[in-house]
Structure formats: structure tokens, C-alpha cells
């Protein structure tokens, strides 16, 4: 049985080898499973942007982009299978969209020499490019997010947080635990009281956590949720009549899918973001003519303009810009993963660039360097308007508390370097 299956599978793999395009990108997406509601818009945005580049510009620098999609279901085992099955095709950069899979791929991709871009997720201390040469997490990371939330709360409270109670409702996994250390450090600095409320995967059961919130009455609740957990948390918050403008989610807890089920009750819910929202951008006109009207939109094509679609598109845009940078640096159009890494390390996003791409003011300006793979940590707060059904930014982009985060990144990456026996240094 084993043999016959193996032979069959071998045949399938042989037949599967696609026509080699010059530039291959991968999307480890998840359109199934408990996190599909959030995985689908991101994957659609990512795919559509590359389709747009292929259709409108003939690819990047004249090279068509071949996007290989692989379904992970947010499952680490399938993530490994996806990585191994696509890495042979010369994929330039991996974007796993899962902190668990990112952790797993960091050593593997480093050994194989393929860059990873974990945009706003993954291992935060990968910001230190001297220790993690192949991993990038610009433009912002979870520790930035934690700081953004606290800064925003401090603003609301007139600058003084002493004696205030802040609760963190988090996905009980590597992802949800990321902000804890930062929030603890910030608590020392600002004098608020932090309570931690873990929610187990997949997060459909949160009655006890919200009962505790109802009893303890924290002044603010911060949430690190994903997938179905977000919807349930917001619904529960509505149920206990928690004031929505004091409920702040990380950027992964701020999509339309998360707030719509709670209806009007979710009005005023806040979420962080590191890019702009809505579809009021020239690039959407191009997407409509070159992708949607031609019937080439990914998935069902109904996600355009949602928060996570924009984020997927933003990720694709940053990848495309890194490819351009790499092409300029190497003088070749068909770049290798190693050249891609150099391109990412020298990526610079300016307002002029974004405007030229039809995305004026879409994200913060930043510049990547060897010492800083994580951008400058700019983010903003968005608020949900249930009547209009839209997210809108209520603050400008502001920087996270580098005074607190800088030493934390230094400490954690040094610990990793010691554990893994890495000599820190720029490539």
C-alpha cells in the first residue's frame, strides 16, 4: 500500500511541475479551517496585486510573476509540507501568515537561504537583522502594536495611566503571547495594572474570560485574536455591554468579518493598523479594469476593499517593491532568493513611491537596513462605524515607544543567538 501510493504520488508530483516563470512567489494561504474568514481576504489581496502587475505592467521589471498558492489551513504540519513542496521552484520570499509556521520556517529558510517576510506577525526580535539575516517583519511588529495600544489609551486618559486596569485577551499561542512582555514592561513604566486572559484555540469558548472582565471591570481591554476568536470576543463584549471605544484589537483583530456579526453593538470598536483602509485609492480603478473585469480576481472576488484585502495587497506591494530594488541592485531581472534578500534589506518606502503606485498615504514611510529589519514601528488606530460599515483611521501614524522596545528586541535576539549559536553580524 505504501509503495503504490508513493509511486502514484511521485507521478502526481512529476506531472505537477509547472511551466517555470522567471519570478516565483508563494502564498501559504488558508482558505479553509477556523481562520479562513481572515485568511481568504488576505490571500485574495495578495494574489490580485500580482495579477494586476502581470496584466497591467507585464510583471515586475519585465518578468511575469508566477504565484504558487498552497493551502495550510493554519496548520503547522501542512505549512511544512507547503514549504518543502514549493521551495524547489525558486520561491523568492515566503509569507506564512501564521506565527506558528513562521517560527518553524525561520531556521529552515535560513538554512536554505530563502527570505521570510512576516509582515506584522511572527517573531518580533527578527527585527534585529544582524541575528536574523533572512527574516523581515517590517513595517511594524507586535511589540510596536502593544505600545501603540498603550499610547492610545494614555492619550484617552490624558496622559496618566496610574492605577488604571488593562486586560489583555489573547489567543493562547505563540502569537497571543508575543505582546505580554512588552505590556508588562510598559506597565512598569506607566503604572497601570495588567491582567492576562488567555483564550484557547480556536477561541469559540470565551464565556469565562468575559465573565471575569465583567467582574474585574478593567478600564481597557486589548485583544490579540485571530479568526473566529475575534467575532466571539466582540460579541461577548457587546453582551456584557463593555464600552466599545475602550476595546482595542491588534491589527489582526480588525477586519470587517470580526465586527459585522455583532451588528450595531460593535460600533466604536477600535483596532490598530499599519496601513490605510477602504478602497479610496487610484489602484482600485486599475484592479477593477485589469483584474476584476477580466474575471481574474482570486477567490470569489468579493473581498476588494476590506481591511485584510488591503493588507494582503500591501504585503504584495512591499514584495514587488523589494523585487524592484533587488533588480536595480543586481542589474538582473530574474533575481535569486539571495538577491531578493538584499533587495528587502535595502527597501525604502517613500510617499512618492506609494503615490506612483496609486496608493498615496497608504502606509508609513520607512527604510529597512541590516540592523533594522522591522521598520520604524509606526501605526495608527482605526475605528469601526457600524452604521456606515467602514473602518476609518482616527489618529495619524505614530511611533511606538522605542525606549522600551529597543532593549527588548536586543535582549530577545541575543538570547536566540546564544541558543542557536549564531554569530551576530551583517551579511
Amino acid at each position, binding site marked *: *500500500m*505504501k509503495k503504490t*501510493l*508513493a509511486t*502514484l*504520488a511521485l507521478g*502526481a*508530483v512529476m*506531472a*505537477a511541475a509547472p511551466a517555470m516563470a522567471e519570478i516565483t512567489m508563494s502564498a501559504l*494561504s488558508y*482558505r*479553509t479551517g477556523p481562520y*479562513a474568514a481572515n485568511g*481568504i481576504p488576505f490571500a485574495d489581496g495578495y494574489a490580485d496585486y500580482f495579477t494586476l502587475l502581470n496584466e497591467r505592467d507585464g510583471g515586475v521589471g519585465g518578468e511575469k510573476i508566477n504565484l504558487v*498558492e*498552497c*493551502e495550510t*489551513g493554519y*496548520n*503547522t*504540519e501542512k505549512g*511544512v*509540507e507547503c*514549504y*518543502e*513542496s514549493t*521551495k*524547489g521552484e525558486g520561491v523568492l520570499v515566503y509569507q506564512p501568515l501564521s*506565527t*506558528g509556521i513562521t*517560527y*518553524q520556517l525561520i*531556521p*529552515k529558510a*535560513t*538554512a536554505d537561504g530563502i527570505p521570510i517576510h512576516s509582515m506584522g506577525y511572527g*517573531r*518580533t526580535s527578527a527585527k534585529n537583522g544582524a541575528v536574523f539575516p533572512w527574516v523581515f517583519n517590517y513595517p511594524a511588529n507586535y511589540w510596536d502594536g502593544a505600545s501603540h495600544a498603550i499610547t492610545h489609551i494614555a492619550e484617552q486618559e490624558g496622559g496618566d495611566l496610574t492605577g488604571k486596569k488593562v486586560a489583555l485577551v489573547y489567543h*493562547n*499561542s*505563540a*502569537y497571543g*503571547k*508575543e505582546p*505580554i*512582555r512588552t505590556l508588562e514592561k510598559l506597565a512598569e513604566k506607566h503604572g497601570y495594572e495588567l491582567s492576562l486572559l*488567555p483564550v*484557547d*484555540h480556536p477561541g469559540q469558548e470565551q464565556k469565562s474570560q468575559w465573565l471575569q472582565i465583567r467582574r474585574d471591570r478593567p478600564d481597557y481591554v486589548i485583544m490579540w485574536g485571530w479568526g473566529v476568536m475575534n467575532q466571539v470576543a466582540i460579541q461577548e463584549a457587546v453582551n456584557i455591554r463593555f464600552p466599545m471605544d475602550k476595546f482595542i484589537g491588534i491589527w489582526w483583530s480588525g477586519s470587517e468579518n470580526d465586527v459585522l456579526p455583532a451588528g450595531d453593538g460593535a460600533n466604536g470598536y477600535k483596532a490598530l493598523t499599519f496601513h490605510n483602509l477602504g478602497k479610496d485609492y487610484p489602484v482600485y480603478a486599475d484592479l477593477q479594469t485589469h483584474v476584476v473585469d477580466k474575471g481574474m480576481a482570486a*477567490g470569489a472576488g468579493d473581498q476588494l476593499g476590506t481591511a485584510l484585502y488591503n493588507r494582503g495587497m500591501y504585503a504584495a506591494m512591499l514584495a514587488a517593491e523589494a523585487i524592484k530594488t533587488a533588480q536595480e541592485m543586481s542589474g538582473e531581472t530574474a533575481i535569486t532568493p539571495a538577491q531578493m534578500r538584499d533587495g528587502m534589506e535595502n527597501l525604502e518606502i517613500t510617499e512618492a513611491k506609494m503615490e506612483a503606485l496609486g496608493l498615496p498615504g497608504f502606509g508609513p514611510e520607512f527604510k529597512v537596513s541590516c540592523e533594522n529589519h522591522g521598520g520604524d514601528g509606526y501605526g495608527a488606530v482605526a475605528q469601526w462605524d457600524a452604521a456606515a460599515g467602514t473602518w476609518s483611521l482616527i489618529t495619524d501614524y505614530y511611533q511606538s515607544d522605542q525606549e522600551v522596545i529597543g532593549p527588548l528586541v536586543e535582549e*530577545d535576539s541575543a538570547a536566540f543567538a546564544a*541558543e*542557536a*549559536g549564531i554569530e551576530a553580524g551583517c551579511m
Partner: protein
Amino acid sequence: MLYREAGDFKTSYADDNQTFPIRFDRWRYYAVLVIAFGIVPFIINDYWVSAVFLPFLIYAIAAIGLNILTGYCGQVSLGTGGFMAVGAYACYKLMTAFPDINIFFHVILAGGVTAGVGILFGLPSLRIKGFYLAVATLAAQFFLVWLFNRVPWFYNNSASGQISAPERTVFGIEVTGANTEAWASYLFCLVFVVILAWLARNLTRGTVGRKWMAIRDMDIAAEIIGVNPLTAKLSAFAVSSFFIGIAGALFFAVYLGAVEVGEVFGINKSFLVLFMVIIGGLGSIFGSFAGAAFLVLLPVLLKNILVGTLGWPTDLAAHLEFMIVGALIIIFLIAEPHGLAQLWRVAKEKLRLWPFPH
């Protein structure tokens, strides 16, 4: 014609009791070993190891472990995921605390630790049976996962709560960590599979195994003829957990390299291994392999055919995969409630008579 006892004379008790009484089976067995040790390591690449061979081998160990408990001793367990987590975390703690000791021993010790935990959670089996025991082991599953998430000591206080396998070598060759060669991790797991399968086979046909089966078939009768239920049941829990612990340790250290307990060792894992045992065949070592192969290889094969060859959208393929695997499970269980192992047995019976069935 080839597959028959005739002409294969047994002249000693040892011969008479051998695992493969038919010559053809013996040769087939040796041939599989030669291929697995002598040929496969030279031709496999990263994809085959990570997507096919490692999960198959490791799940086979876990399935054998659960089969000992459920198939041979009749004690239903839903705690497999939790016990695999014990193996993984024990291995992690040992690897980081004693970096100079060979990883081989760490894996075995991790199995030993899991055996101890298994005995502890096996104690209720002395008083409760069947579905009630299943619920008690379910408690073990949830408790253990919660424990490893809750107590930072288990993950060495890392910020994310993830455990990552450091690089370790056997005879100077890396078997864990990112720079491991495909063949090295394959052979490392294969050695464990062969030793453990051999051990399981010999345990189950000796005194210990007969006691387990007596308890399974009718515990009161077994007690009357002198089988001590305490030692029989707890030894089944210990041996089963030992196997499952080793599977968990390999799963973490060799296969995944980084693990998050809730996601990797959740209740789904317990069900998956239980399904392997049921589909493969309760009370059969071969069945454990067949069940593991069925549930590991089939999804990968379907994915490669649907997405790779036919070029279907990945989400459609993923949904279809669930439906096809689910339908096949139902069809198999209706056609042969005793699992793939029974199909294999029937096939062998037919082969013996072939080509003259009357």
C-alpha cells in the same frame, strides 16, 4: 502458488512461533527492510522526508502505542495528543538541560517520562471502563496541554511559549535542527520505528500481551484465571505511553523542529491517532502502519493530484480532500469493520489458496 506453507517445514518450536510463518512473508519483510535502510535514504529529498516519510513513521509509532492500549488491552484512550506533548516537552527539557548527551537517549528518556505520566492517568482505568475511561483520558488531554501552556518552566520561559529543537547530532551527524540532511532524520526515525515495532510485536505475543488480551476480552474471567488487572492495565498504559512519548519527542525534535502545544498536540491529534488505529485495525501491528499510511499519505496524494496535476483552486481541493478522505473512511469501515489489517488477512487467506480456491 508462491504464497503457501507447503514445503516450509518447521523443525523447532522457535521456528513454529516465528512472526512470519510463511516463507514469502519473511522474504517480503526482509525486502522491505533492505529497501527502507539501503535504498530509500539514497533517493529521498527534503520534500519526501518532510511531507511523507517522517509523518508516516512517527504516526506509525504513535498508532502502535495506542493500539497496544486500545487494540490489545481494550482501554479506550483519548489522551494521545497530551501524551505526545509530554514526550515532546520532556525531550525539549532534556535536550536543553543536558546538551552533551546523545539525542537518542533523550528520546528514549522522554518515552520513559511519558510512561510514568501514562501510569498516573491510567489509574482510573482500574475502576472505570469504556466510555467513562475515555472521558477520564480526555481530561488528561486537556490538562496536559493546559499545563504546558501555563507553566513557563516547560518552555524555558521563552517569550512566545514555543519550544524549538536545538541542533543535536548522532555520531557527528545532525538529526535535529535546520541543517539536517533528509536521509539523517529519516534514518533516525526509521531506527526507532523498527526497534519499537519489533518490541511491540514480541510483547504482544508473549505473556504480557496475552494478559492484555485476556483483560480486553473479559476482565472478570481474566481475573479469575489469575491475571492481575492492576499490573496488566497499568503495564499497558506504561508501554503505550512509552511509545506515544517517543512519537511525540520525534514529532517535535526531528519532524517539526518548533512546536506550540495547543496547535500541534490538541484534541485533534488524539482523534487522528485513534482513527489510524481504527481504520488500520485494532489489535494489529501491521494495522497501525496501514492506518498511519492511509491518513498521512492520502491527503498529500490528493493535494498533489488536485492542485498539482489538475490545477484546481487550493481551497476547493482542501474541501474535497476532507470529503474524499471522510467518504473513504466510511466506505472502508462499512466494507471491513475490522480495518485494513483484516483486508490484508483476507487477502493472505485467498493468496494461500490461489489459484485453486476449492
